[in-house]
């Protein structure tokens, strides 16, 4: 195991994050505050409660997940696309490192950034609502697993993308809709029965449900199913990455 390489990649990626720390920090804080103003105060004033939880508090887990998923995906996809774009990919290919080490360095850094942003949003949320976290360990585990799995997804997108447009395409067309339709701002039980079944095919539902359970002890799907879903998703992404490196697809000519 080449730990030196993992640490070199991780540090270089984190350095990029710290170079733009202010942007990384301010934009999630502002967007979260906006969500609270719009959903929490304006709409929440009419909805009052969802499943016995004040609406403003109910949306916190969904808000955190929304940002964490999009940030993890875009961070990781950009991180691996950038060396392809500027031509420094040769360094990773000619160094004595395995696909696992490259992935660990890049995904580790992207997941760290996403986790940091997730925690910042959580902290921001406490300024607007009273939050009690019923199962803190489970909350952290879900948060970290989501950071890792969506960073893996972003990593795949970054390798796949041939230009900046494609880099934006998947997050915009797939992830954002899935998150919005995944019960970020409502309970699945509020939907008509037919749509409840359709929603079961949305993987994000399981993540948000499990995450919300960690806060309030209530979930749309059993917590075990949520854990299984996110573990399966992580394994799937890892498998795809392993295949990519094995075949050299879009990396090694």
């Amino acid at each position, binding site marked *: 195991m*080449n*730990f*030196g*390489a993992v*640490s*070199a*990649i991780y*540090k*270089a990626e984190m*350095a*990029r994050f710290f*170079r733009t720390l202010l942007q990384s920090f301010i934009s999630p804080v502002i967007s979260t505050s906006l969500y609270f103003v719009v959903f929490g105060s304006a709409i929440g004033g009419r909805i009052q409660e969802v499943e016995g939880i004040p609406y403003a508090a109910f949306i916190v887990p969904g808000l955190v997940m929304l940002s964490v998923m999009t940030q993890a995906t875009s961070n990781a996809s950009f991180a691996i696309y950038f*060396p392809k774009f*500027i*031509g*420094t990919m*040769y*360094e*990773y*290919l*000619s*160094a*004595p*490192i*395995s696909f696992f080490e490259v992935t660990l360095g890049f995904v580790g850094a992207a997941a760290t950034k996403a986790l940091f942003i997730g925690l910042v949003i959580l902290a921001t949320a406490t300024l607007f609502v009273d939050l009690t976290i019923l199962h803190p360990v489970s909350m952290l585990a879900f948060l970290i697993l989501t950071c890792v799995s969506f960073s893996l997804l972003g990593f795949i997108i970054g390798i796949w993308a041939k230009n900046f447009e494609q880099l934006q395409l998947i997050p915009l067309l797939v992830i954002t809709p899935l998150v919005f339709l995944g019960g970020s701002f409502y309970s699945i039980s509020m939907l008509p029965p037919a749509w409840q079944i359709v929603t079961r095919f949305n993987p994000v539902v399981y993540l948000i449900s499990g995450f919300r359970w960690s806060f309030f002890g209530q979930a749309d799907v059993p917590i075990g199913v949520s854990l299984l879903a996110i573990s399966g998703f992580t394994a799937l992404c890892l498998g795809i990455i392993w295949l990519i490196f094995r075949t*050299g697809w879009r990396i*090694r*000519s």
Partner: protein
Amino acid sequence: MPPIVSVKDLTKTYPGGFTALSGVSLDIEEGEIIALLGPNGAGKTTLISAICGITMPSGGTIEVGGHDVVRDYRRARDLIGLVPQEIALEPFSTVWNNVRFTRGLFDRPRDDAYLEGLLRDLSLWDKRDAKVMELSGGMKRRVLIAKALSHGPRVLFLDEPTAGVDVELRKDMWRVVERLREEGVTIILTTHYIEEAEAIADRIGVISRGRIMLVERTEELMRRLGKKELRIELSEPVGPLPDGLRRDGLERAADGQALIYTYDTHAERTGITALLADLQASGLQLADLSTSNSSLEEIFVGLVKEDGQ
């Protein structure tokens, strides 16, 4: 001693069907400097890319330091430093961090003194805290070299190192290469400049259309190149050479219409004066005289042309 780099029957066909290398075999001895010459698109960069792990070979085997570059890639690549042809660097990071990063990729412990020496050798020390994007093209090329040397490789690949490089950098670079040679580092470089290959390489290989046309010791190649031919056209065909004319290097052309004298331009005496005096004495009538030489350039062009036909 086994070769440090051993390429056997290497072929590379790209998915589009283009064959960049067809059956290349090449052994490189430890500590030598070998120059690969060839026109653009000959396959020089593909060969280097295959050895370094950037391109996957379609067939054949490559070993570096006795390690197969595919199966035992860690140990093989551990020995290799690569200076690519195109300038590609992380623009937002400093020179120092760029070089340290590469050292990290090769799992070497931090050694600031070594990197300082490296940057000083390449006149980069003053620029160590500058961001790469602020540097000139020549400076960026120096950074590429520093990165390739950051982990102390045993085999260094320089892909067109002097293309578009000013005199100052070229001098610096050859000084570094000279020092590496003394340390026993094997150096493989590709170049368009034949004089450069002559000046620095122990051996010269010529590549054309994905095949190695020739690999020869530089001095042998130069000896062959240093020869000139004097062609003496005669008014009347001549039979066997008269005794007074017989000497080393003089031959009768097949039809007897000409004599061909091969001589060494570097020799103290070429023997031309004596030959001309003896010719006059023999009574042969000269119709014309011409000389031609075979430079590396000509051999090179000749080989490539032959191959093209």
